[in-house]
Structures are given as C-alpha cells and as structure tokens.
C-alpha cells in the first residue's frame, strides 16, 4: 500500500511541476489553418513582421478536424484574426458572420483584378468577396502511362466511354484488376465532387444560375454520369475502393489503378519517388468529355479570410494581402513561393507568365494541359449558398444507393430535387 501511495504522490507532484510552466501570451496577429509546412508559413510571417511591424503567429490545427475546431472557436468567440477557409464551407461561415468580406477594402480591387473570375466566384457569398487565395486549381485526369503502355493503349481517353474501353483493355491485359478510381465515399469533397466533375464533363451542372435543380431531369448529364459510374462499377472497371477509401490517391501511388480524376497538386506526390511506387509514370490529361464536349471540370480554392474576431482590422487586412496577394515590395511573394517550392496551384495572372514557376512545376505536371484544363472549369454558384451542405449531407446515402443499384434513380433524384427546392424556398433564394 505504501509503495502505491508514494507512486501516486510522485506522479501528482511531477505532473503539477510540468503543468505549472507558465503559458506564453502573444499580443500580435493570430493566423490559423491546417498544418501544412508550418515552418514556411512562420518564415513568411517573419517577413511580414519585418515589412509592417505587426507581430504575427501561426497556430495550426489538425487538418481533418479543422472545420469542426473552427466552428467551436467561432461560436465561443474566436481568438484568431485570420483563418484558412476551404471553398466548400465558405458560404456557411459567411452566412454565420464568422468571416468578413474584403470587397471595398483599400487595395482589394487592384488585387482582385489579377484573378480569374472563376476564382473570385469561388471566394464569394451573396456578391461579396471573402478573402484572397492561398492555393487554387482544378481537377485533372491523372493516368498511369506504364499501364496504358502495358495494354497497348496509345493515348489517354478523350471521352468517358473511351476511358471505359481503355480500362477494359488494361484489365484484359492483366495489368491491373480495377483500372478506374473515383472518389465516391461519403463526406465533404468526395462523392459530390466526383459527380460534379462527371456532370460538367457531360456538359451539365447540378443547378442553373437561379438555383433551380437540373440534375434530376430526364436524361440529364448528371444522370448520364451516374449511369456511367453504376455500369462500370458493376463491370469491375471502377475500383470498389472508390466507395470506401478516404485517400484514394495513394492507390495511384501503389500502382493498383490507372485512371483518376484528382486535384492537380496530388500529381506531385504521385511522381515523388520517396512516396510513390509509380513515380514518373503518372501524367495529367484533360478530364474526358461526352456529348460532343471535349472536357469539363471544377476548380477549388483555399483562401485566407479575416475572422469576426479580428481586433485590428487594418492589420488583419494587411496580413491577408501579404499572404494571398502582394507583399510590401509589390510582388506576389507568398503565392509564388508556394508555387515555386511546393507546387501549390496559384491564381494571380502575373504568375502564369513567370518562367521560374513554369519550369518548377513541369517536373510533375504538364503546365500547358493544366492551364487548358482550367478553361473547362464550370461556374458553380449553387455551391455558395448557405444551405448547400444541408442538402449535400442528405444526398450521400441516396446517391450511393443508386450507384450500388439498391435504389431507383427516379425516386431518389426527384426526392433530392424536392428537398433542394424546399431548402431554397425556406432560405428565400
């Protein structure tokens, strides 16, 4: 008994000692986000402090739970002045008043003038722009050149049907079992993103510019895409891992699959010999088309926004301009650094012509094809209404049921359309 008592005592005393270390307080600007290359961000902030005299610190949170962490932080009254935002929840955060518009702030127009309209749309809510881009890009088709060679396929597919034929050839040649990967899992940035891509590539979209549903209409591009997925999943051409895996891109690196519509920057990892067994074999092509449409895709933006917790608005705006736009010397310092050293996609027009940037990314992706793919990105105003994720969450199960052949498409799609219309009316859109 004595030994345990003393052990307990020792433990308590020890932990009290360690816990008693005073916590440092910081009065400068606080930036939060997900923990990608924390030291580079901190270095950049050092440059910001040198140029402006404002102290700034980066306090990141785990990527997978970042959104939830920030919801709690905003509700309680956030400490952070500037935060990373993904376009998929921009509308909700803006509707809740957690992030502030930058439209009309001094110098905003000039920076926005350098950005393509598509990117500005993806950072907007009800006509106001809510930040400047951190990184951005489009979904591209990644394919494994070695697999195509192995099946005697000469060039990557230009249509979805051609992709299915090539996949069949690859499967028949015994190269891989299920050549096509798609992100069909439940969750933000999986199933719906894939369906948006295939719908865009069939010349359609989910909703029109007045937010009326189009996806459920008879023979809509959405239905064609859904049908294509269902057929090829049944045929074993689409990997069943598509329905379950969160990190599908690792399968491209494992070499078990030949085609995947993916975010542009993942090609860097796929072609990195440290991480990938297929380094050098993964190439990018235009997302295939259908219905006389050459291609179609969607873009994405990660942005820096000023939060409603910002005490010094001027300083916070200065920080956003520094991170997403130009530094005090008038150059796109931070965006260029991300592009040059880390291969993150960029939006400001001047960087497209930058020789240095072009050369650095061409090691793992074809910059011209990437550029061309960008032209096929559809505008998705419907994603930037506050009720989109309410609808999206309820759509995963029913849409997967269609894909798995467990539910009748007509019933499900009409019901989903009704749910959307109900939400739309409720919100007065």
């Amino acid at each position, binding site marked *: 008994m004595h030994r345990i008592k003393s052990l307990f005592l020792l*433990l308590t005393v020890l932990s009290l000692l360690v816990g008693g270390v005073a916590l440092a307080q910081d009065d400068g600007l606080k930036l939060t986000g997900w923990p*990608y290359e924390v030291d580079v961000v901190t270095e950049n902030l050092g440059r910001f402090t040198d140029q402006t005299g404002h102290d700034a610190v980066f306090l990141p949170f785990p990527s997978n739970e970042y959104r939830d962490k920030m919801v709690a932080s905003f509700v*309680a009254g956030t400490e952070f002045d500037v935060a990373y935002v993904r376009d998929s929840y921009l509308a909700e955060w803006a509707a809740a008043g957690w992030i502030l518009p930058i439209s009309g702030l001094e110098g905003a127009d000039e920076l926005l003038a350098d950005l393509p309209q598509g990117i500005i749309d993806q950072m907007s809510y009800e006509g106001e722009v809510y930040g400047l881009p951190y990184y951005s890009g489009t979904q591209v088709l990644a394919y494994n050149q070695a697999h195509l060679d192995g099946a005697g396929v000469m060039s990557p597919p230009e249509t979805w049907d051609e992709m299915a034929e090539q996949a069949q050839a690859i499967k028949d040649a015994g190269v891989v079992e299920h050549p096509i990967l798609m992100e069909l899992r439940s969750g933000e940035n999986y199933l719906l993103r894939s369906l948006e891509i295939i719908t865009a590539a069939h010349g359609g979209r989910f909703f029109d510019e007045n937010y009326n549903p189009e996806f459920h209409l008879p023979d809509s591009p959405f239905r064609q895409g859904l049908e294509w997925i269902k057929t090829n999943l049944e045929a074993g051409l689409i990997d069943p891992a598509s329905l379950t895996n969160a990190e599908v891109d690792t399968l491209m690196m*494992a070499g078990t699959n030949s085609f995947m519509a993916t975010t542009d920057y993942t090609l860097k990892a796929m072609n990195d010999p*440290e991480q990938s067994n297929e380094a050098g074999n993964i190439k990018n092509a235009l997302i295939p088309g259908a219905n006389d449409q050459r291609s179609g895709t969607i873009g994405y933006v990660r942005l820096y926004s000023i939060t409603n917790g910002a005490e010094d608005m001027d300083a916070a705006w200065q920080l956003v301009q520094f991170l997403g736009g130009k530094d005090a010397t008038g150059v796109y310092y931070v965006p260029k650094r991300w592009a040059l050293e880390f291969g993150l996609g960029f939006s400001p027009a001047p960087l497209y012509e930058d020789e240095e940037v072009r050369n650095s990314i061409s090691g793992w992706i074809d910059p011209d094809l990437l550029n061309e793919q960008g032209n096929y990105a559809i505008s998705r105003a419907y994603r930037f209404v506050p009720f989109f994720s309410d609808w999206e969450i309820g759509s995963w199960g029913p849409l997967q049921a269609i894909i798995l052949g467990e539910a009748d498409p007509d019933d499900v799609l009409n019901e989903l359309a009704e749910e959307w219309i109900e939400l739309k009316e409720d919100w007065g859109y």
Partner: protein
Amino acid sequence: MQQRARLRLAVIYIGAAAVLLGTVGPFLWLVSSSFQYERQLLNIPPQWLPNPIVLDSYREIFEGAVLGEESGVPYQSRIFLRSFANSFFVAGSVAAIAVLVGAYAAYPLARLTFRGRSVLLFGILASRMIPALSLAIPIVLVAKRIGMSDKIVTLVFINLSFILPYVIWLLQSYFKTIPIELEDAGRIDGCSRLQVVHKIILPLSLPGLTSAGILAFLLTWGEFLFALLLSETPASYTSTVVVSLFATDVDVSFVSIITAGVVSVIPPIGFALIFQRFIISGLLSGSLKG
C-alpha cells in the same frame, strides 16, 4: 497429474498466443511500418519487415524535442514530445483525483442505506448519457466566458467529470464484493465509517482501485475532442492533438503519423505496466483465510 498440468499450460499458452496475435499483431505491424519508407507502405503484398530499417521519423521526433528550432525538423516533430508533459499532467491528475474522490463517493452507494440512493447512482451515470459531441460547444463556450480556455487545468476538470461516473460505478460494484463481515469486525473494534473506508475497504480494493486508475489514465491520455476544442496554442496541446497535427492536408507523411502514434502509446502502456500488477494482488483471498 503432471500430464494434466502440462495440458493446462499448453492450452493457456495457445490462448495467450492468440490474444497477443490479436492485440499486439496489428500494433507490431504499425511499428514495422514506422521503420519503412513512405512508398514501401504501398507495396503489394504488404511488406512485413522493414528493409532497410529507416529511422528518419524517430530521429526527427527526438532531435526536434532536444534541439528545438535548431534541429531543422518540421514543427510537428519539434512540439511532439513536449506535449507529453501536458498529457502526463492531465492524465496523471485525472487518474489520481478520480480514484480518490470516486472511492469516497462509491462507498455509500455500495454500503449505506439512504433515501435517494438509486437516484444518486443513476444521476451520476446520467451525466454521461448525452454524447460529448453535443456538450462540446456549450463547454467550449462556458470555458471561454470564464477565461478557462487554452488551459490544461480545464482539461483536467472536464476529463475528470467525464470519467468519475465510470470510476464510481466500477468502485461501488467492487466494494460490494468485499465481505460485510470484515467491515463489521472493524466497526465492532470501534472504527468510524471513515476509518472503515481507510483501514478495510481501500486496502482490500487495491485491484479495483488500480483498474479504475488505469481506466482513468488511459481514457484521458487518449482524449482528443476536448483537447482539440479547448486549445489555442501549443502550450496547451496534448499528445493526441499533436499526433493529429501530422495530418497536414497536402502531402501527408503517413510514416510520420504512424511513428508519432507508436511513440505516444509508450507512456500509457508504461503506466499500465507499473500499476497493473496490483490488480492481481491476492490480498483479498489471503485476508479471508483467517
């Protein structure tokens, strides 16, 4: 008889091997993965043993802890081992306080007759019926309002209140198994209730108290939700938060996450190793023979 004994041992060892295979097997595979190159994780079929043995991610974690920023290793690796201090503080305090406070609360529930006993028993457990997820935001809100967010003391309180109900239930059930005659003997000798608890109940409950302590320590060590939601700066990160920080959104290094996970398992296992021999103490059976 000797043959019987041998058969018994054989059955036991086959069983023990199955248990080890089932519990430690997957973990050993994690350990093996932590010594591999990133791309080797994707080999088909999986690579059982690391070849060559790659120590990079371990080196980063230990160099980062010792040298800090001079080590030149990523941020996550630098703050990882330091976060163990917070985890130790929180889990250690919770285990100690929960067992102490919980034992006193459990005694009347096990031994006394009073009105409202069932109400108290279920009132305590009812506090754990609502999923933590829906209490999370109110708790964060309150903590912020009273200036208690970003403090690890807050984590001690929250974990304590979440774990106490289990500890109390566990201990009251354990106390009931102690023969009432022993307690009566003490009371005849003139012990007060408090003395009965101190001199008879607690010493005889060592296995139960230890189980409760291990339960509290491990549950707290692994707690993630509140550790994440209540922290704002690295000063209050616990190890589970930092392990999750290795997931970076772009360019995730799975080997780093796995290594961090393997390292963070060591303290709770060590804790359990030190304390769990008291679970099998033989005290109780010994005392009954008299």
